[in-house]
């Protein structure tokens, strides 16, 4: 019997996860399929956050602005300029990259607590801007994208993104692409440099690495993935509102990543899924569901101090990427 190398094992595992998610499209009851579609889109947000926080060690409290940049980049161009979905999605990505580049360039001059505060402030500015330009964004109330605008054109046909099965499959496609990109990235030399910068920045500088440029690149890629999630959210679920730019959407990806396991490729998915179902289940039994959520989180921290996947990797499966 030939022994599988860690690299083949991890690729097989990731392909397996995507195939399992594909099968779930046909197996899950309608309600849960809807939840999973949402989780898949938001897991992309968490994966983008994980690239900055988990792998590079940049604790940002402002990632809602990257998600919202994608959300508004796609939503506003569809709503006001009547763009079709492809270019609108592209506008969302571009908005995310531009915001990440600008914020990264300024915020990366700081580290640690100052970095947290600076990113938090920038995100707050972004949030307030979505309220200030309420003529265009309709603020908290938000915009609902009409169903007829949410169709994805292909040569030879169109896909109706409001159809549950299509929505699920499109969400899964985006998830799979980003998962593959992250997996490739963290195994490539560039990913190793990011981890090393997290571990010992000064040493990396004295090995000849441009630490600032590497971190900026990580923030921009992170912003790109988060914006992809936001833009997909707009076109798949048809709603664009200020709530997504608010502080809780900066905290949520941090929470999802911590629960699932920072600096693991599958942790963000597991964390997002877990938190969704804990909140969903708890709130169907009691109005005090946040108390239950708090207790569950304490349990997770006690038994999985490095997050679910992080602890599995530490105890049983050291080859997990």
């Amino acid at each position, binding site marked *: 019997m030939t022994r599988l190398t860690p690299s083949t094992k991890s690729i097989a595992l990731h392909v397996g996860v995507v195939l399992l998610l594909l099968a779930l499209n046909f197996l899950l009851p309608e309600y849960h399929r809807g939840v999973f579609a949402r989780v898949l889109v938001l897991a992309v947000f968490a994966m983008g956050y994980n690239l900055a926080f988990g792998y590079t060690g940049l604790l940002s409290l402002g990632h809602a602005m990257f998600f919202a940049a994608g959300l508004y980049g796609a939503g506003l161009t569809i709503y006001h300029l009547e763009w079709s979905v492809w270019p609108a999605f592209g506008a969302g990505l571009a908005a995310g990259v531009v915001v990440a580049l600008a914020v990264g360039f300024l915020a990366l001059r700081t580290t640690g607590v100052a970095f947290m505060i600076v990113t938090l402030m920038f995100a707050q500015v972004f949030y307030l801007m979505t309220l200030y330009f309420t003529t265009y964004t309709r603020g908290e109330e938000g915009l609902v994208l009409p169903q007829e605008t949410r169709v994805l054109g292909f040569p030879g046909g169109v896909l109706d993104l409001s159809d549950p099965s299509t929505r699920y499959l499109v969400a899964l496609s985006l998830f799979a692409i980003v998962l593959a990109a992250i997996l490739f990235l963290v195994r490539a030399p560039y990913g190793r440099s990011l981890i090393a910068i997290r*571990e010992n920045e000064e*040493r990396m500088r*004295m090995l000849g690495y441009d630490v600032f440029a590497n971190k900026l690149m990580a923030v921009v890629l992170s912003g790109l993935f988060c914006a992809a999630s936001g833009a997909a959210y707009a076109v798949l679920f048809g709603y664009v509102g200020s709530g997504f730019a608010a502080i809780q959407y900066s905290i949520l990806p941090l929470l999802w990543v911590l629960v699932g396991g920072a600096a693991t490729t599958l942790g963000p998915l597991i964390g997002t899924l877990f938190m969704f179902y804990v909140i969903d289940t708890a709130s169907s039994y009691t109005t005090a569901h946040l108390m239950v959520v708090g207790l569950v989180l304490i349990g997770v921290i006690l038994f999985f101090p490095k997050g679910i996947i992080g602890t599995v990797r530490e105890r049983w499966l050291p080859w997990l990427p």
Partner: protein
Amino acid sequence: MAAVKPLLETHGLGRSFGGLRAVDGVDFSLPEGETHAIIGPNGAGKTTFVSLICGRVAPTDGRVVFDGKDISLMPAHKRVRAGIAYTFQITSVFANLTAFDNVALAVQRQLIDDHERGLSSRALTEHGVDALQKVGLGDHADKVAGNLSYGHQRLLEVAMGLALRPRLLILDEPTQGLSDSEIENFIALVRQIGEEATVLLIEHNMDVVMALAERITVMEQGRILAQGAPAEIRANQAVQQAYLGG
């Protein structure tokens, strides 16, 4: 003596921390190929001086010239790529990574710039293993750096410096905390490195200094007190006073 072009020069190089002149107008010249030791009492400004050379600390005045080019304003990472490698006084390896991965990070950076060889996993392995073998850590490649003995971590630190293929290797108190037998191996290692690269060594252990240095610079209170061959330094009155307080 043939006029050898200096690899490194400093002109009036100085650094103040508040009112303290840690390095005070130092003119220094290091010919290519030399193994040079900097000694001096604690707080003499030795580490600050080499930090100014490798760019970890910005100078308040003066210039650093490396290989004929003024690098005073060059950021540290570019100086490393220009050929100045620095090994830390306080061991600074990546404790969670294996010894090989530590060295691979240095090799990787070096290969990115080396367009002839290019960054391939074969070249990475080859050069990484090579650097580890040079310092005698060939058998420890797969061990996690944090679990290595202190002496081995110091050697790993040097291997990372070597993997950068520097023209100037700065070793900041490399034998601190090593046992006598480890020091002996270390002297042999630095001698070997000295055949290919210029070495600037900060060291307290006089046996090591006398065994390795072709020339010695003595620093005191941020200034150069004396400079010369080991025998001259040994006989120098001012040096004896600085060290023995006589």
